[in-house]
């Protein structure tokens, strides 16, 4: 049960014939996974810490935040605007990273899997009568739109 591919009742056979546990164990996928996580997780922690630091400063150190920087513009305003700058910056950095590092790996793996899948489907058609072996009641694909 556990290692049978799930069947897509829509008939598009979206994931038929892919051995997901094997893919998950493959070196190629593990590399993609660690590329993704080693970039996204530290960045997520960093921006949350930076945001919370800002909130805590604003609330517990108003004196510090009201130091004048330029004209009427104080440090609090500058730090607040810096939150905007870092958010835009992190967005740009992530997009750059995803386009350059994630997409090529993900696309290569996806195309490989889809090619293998196509092959498996040809195979399945030749052995009709056992379509997909078992229909798992609990798959997300087991629900019709």
């Amino acid at each position, binding site marked *: 049960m556990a290692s049978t591919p799930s069947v897509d009742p829509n008939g598009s056979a979206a994931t038929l014939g892919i051995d997901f546990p094997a893919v998950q164990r493959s070196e190629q996928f593990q590399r993609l996974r660690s590329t993704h996580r080693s970039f996204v997780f530290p960045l997520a922690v960093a921006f949350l810490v930076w945001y919370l630091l800002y909130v805590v400063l604003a609330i517990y150190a108003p004196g510090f935040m*009201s130091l004048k920087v330029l004209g009427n513009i104080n440090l609090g305003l500058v730090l607040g605007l810096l939150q905007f700058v870092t958010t835009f910056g992190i967005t740009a950095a992530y997009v750059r990273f*995803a386009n350059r590092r994630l997409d090529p790996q993900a696309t290569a*793996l996806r195309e490989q899997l889809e090619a293998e899948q196509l092959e498996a489907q040809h195979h399945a058609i030749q052995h009709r009568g056992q379509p997909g072996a078992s229909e798992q009641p609990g798959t997300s694909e087991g629900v019709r739109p």
Partner: protein
Amino acid sequence: MNILATTLPAVHLAEGASATVGNPAINISIFLSFVLVTLVVVIRASKSTATAADYYAGGRSFSGTQNGLAIAGDYLSAASFLGIVGAIALQGYDGFLYSIGFFVAWLVALLLIAEPLRNTGKFTMADVLSFRLRQRPVRVAASISTLAVTFFYLLAQMAGAGALVSLLLGISSKAGQSLVIVIVGVIMIVYVLVGGMKGTTWVQIIKACLLVTGVAVMTVWILAMFGFNFSAILGAAVETNNKPAMLEPGLKYGVSEISKLDFISLGLALVLGAAGLPHVLMRFYTVPTAKEARKSVVWAITLIGLFYLFTLVLGFGAAALIGADRIKGAPGGVNSAAPLLAYELGGSVLMGLIAAVAFATILAVVAGLAITASASFAHDIYTSVIKKGNSDPRRELRVAKTTVVVIGLISIAGGIGAQGQNVAFLVALAFAVAASANLPTILYSLYWKRFTTRGAVWSMYGGLILSVVLIVFSPVMSGAETSMIPTADFAVYPLSNPGIISIPASFLLGFLGSVTERRKEDPYKQSEMEVRSLTGVGAEKPVAH
């Protein structure tokens, strides 16, 4: 004490206000032409609404740019536009803190959620949450929390519509405002029934363009008046109100230790809530690929960021040009800052335009919420649980449309009932509930292998119940002048926002539920979900027409 009551104020009713600003005839005609134009768009879009994927997910045919605009349209509600401008105009710097929370929150969606969600789901949040867990309990829990979040959000928008009318159209009687709520509600039902996700998305896109353009024009106008010197605007704001403290944090939240803690709680709910809002999550299914989902978040972040920067100028501009006293005295109170500023700058015409945009904002947000709630009920509860996956798509669609009507009627009734109530409380509640009930389960199921059904159910129900109960027993409900029930006092929880307790509790419950459950989840599904989420293999394809 009651922070939410006055700061994110999509609205208090101005009592006995009679003065009208601008020309109601102009306001109404501009508003009606907007409704007419968008209705035509919706009807045209509806010609290709045939399947469930069309109705719920717009056929997955929207580009990242279009979807990004629509997300911005969904997100920038009346609370953002009128509420934040008003909050900055009155509380100065402390109003700005809201914009930052609302904005930074998008990084959670961009980095952790948008793309894997698109790759593993189909129509609703529950698709992703129940992917590798037991379907029924998880779908029911996800659907209940979706309905709860959208209900509070809807109430806020509906009641907000009524309260805004007092200023925009010069209607100050309670009956008149109730009538407007009914009209807005009916228009909303028609939009969603006729156009489905596609029509709704087009309404969002039109509205987002109008809103951002309108705000940008006003910003440049104000900056030009002060020689493009932001410092001069700040100086003028201080001078007009004779309140130097408005440039520094703490005017509103620095009052006591409790209020400080309360703000941290609110900050937490804001930053973690956005990525758990079901109507925002659902938008990621309207694009063909994960890459387009990423692109749409980037567009949304750009627009939303610019918008909040503009509102900073508008807020201090309103403080400088109009002054806190006149804003507070106007019908619509703190929420009138933006329209009043428009009147100050461009007279009746600009005011009429901004009024129409404000209405459109509410209409569009309400439509987006209604479609999310109806999809969740029809897809997750009716088809997956009641019919055990054996309903035919036509029936499911009929159930979804019936749900829209029911939700529309309930929120019309709720909006009339909540008139004059503190609507900001409802918006912040929606954020806090979303952050508590949805976000932990979404993150766990995407990134933690050992997460189980029990963990999901504990986290979702625990987060939902805890956040709602804490708010019921907070000063928002009772025990303070600004409470919903000022005459009673059962506020045992001192903060106005439950986030600081309910969010960590929900994460903890998800962890405890998972490690104590003996029954293992299907490891095959875990593998499938992880591989699909990163590679996009087997993701739902766009519908070809």
